[in-house]
């Protein structure tokens, strides 16, 4: 399956989902006014990916410094589709990278984990990393 790469903008994150390198990353800032529109291409990509992928283990890395309400909802929708891979006994890891000082972003990750009923791994980073 072809990789999906979307470069970052001032209000949207970089998306790099590449089955060949086994990197599945969302990085940057996610505050688009129409998050559903922005994440549409990733959602469609994921719908295909879960049908064809054969890996035993997948790790998703999410490293965002800001995300708005619409982005949370869109990410939840996308992650909910990826999580279906658990039915195929795929070991699915979701890494939630957060500013070491930002407890609100930890809360945000914990809430998403709660809604998805899937554990997140919380990885703190410093601003200069």
């Amino acid at each position: 399956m072809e990789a999906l790469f979307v470069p970052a903008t001032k209000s949207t994150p970089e998306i790099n989902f590449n089955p060949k390198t086994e990197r599945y990353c969302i990085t940057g800032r996610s505050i688009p006014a129409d998050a559903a529109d922005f994440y549409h291409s990733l959602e469609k990509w994921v719908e295909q990916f879960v049908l064809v992928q054969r890996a035993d283990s997948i790790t998703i890395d999410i490293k965002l410094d800001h995300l708005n309400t619409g982005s949370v909802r869109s990410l939840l929708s996308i992650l909910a589709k990826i999580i279906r891979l658990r039915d195929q006994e795929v070991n699915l890891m979701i890494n939630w990278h957060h500013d070491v000082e930002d407890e609100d972003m930890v809360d945000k990750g914990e809430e998403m984990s709660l809604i998805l009923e899937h554990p997140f791994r919380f990885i703190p980073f410093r601003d200069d990393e």
Partner: protein
Amino acid sequence: MLSDADVKELLTDTGSDWFYLGDVSEDLISSFVAMIETRHDFQMLSRPCRRRLLSAVVECLQNIRNNTPPITSPSPGSVVYMKRQNTNEYGLRCGNVMFTKDVDVLKGKLDNINIAGVDQLKNMYVDQMERSLLNGSRTNAGLGLMEIARAVNGPISYRFLPLKGEYSFFCLELVITLN
């Protein structure tokens, strides 16, 4: 739109950091965010405080953008006003034209948010987000307002100003305290 007295008060406030009257577009939101980020006082805030302030501003502006009805008269223009009130306090006022028939529903949402404690607000947010995920809704259904309340860390002050005909002006008046 705001009353003449309100607009005069805002325009003549020499302490205002910025004031905007007009349509709120995605480009405008990006420009506001970029403008805030270049401010010296903003850069002196801790990273979590910067994120919280920007979160409140973005949610407020996107709330305007997403909830202003497609009307041509009166002008659907919105107002946005921000002022640093002291070292760790920012005032933000913003608002938009809306249909008067929708005022009670919005007022009910705001009142529910305002009486909720921190934990209750978190539970409301999670429950609403779960419902949104289950029904595939693309609308915020109050989630943005909850996010604003969490960023403000307190009740959301609001006003509804009657306009001519079937319209009202919805105005949010926030004080964002950053500790």
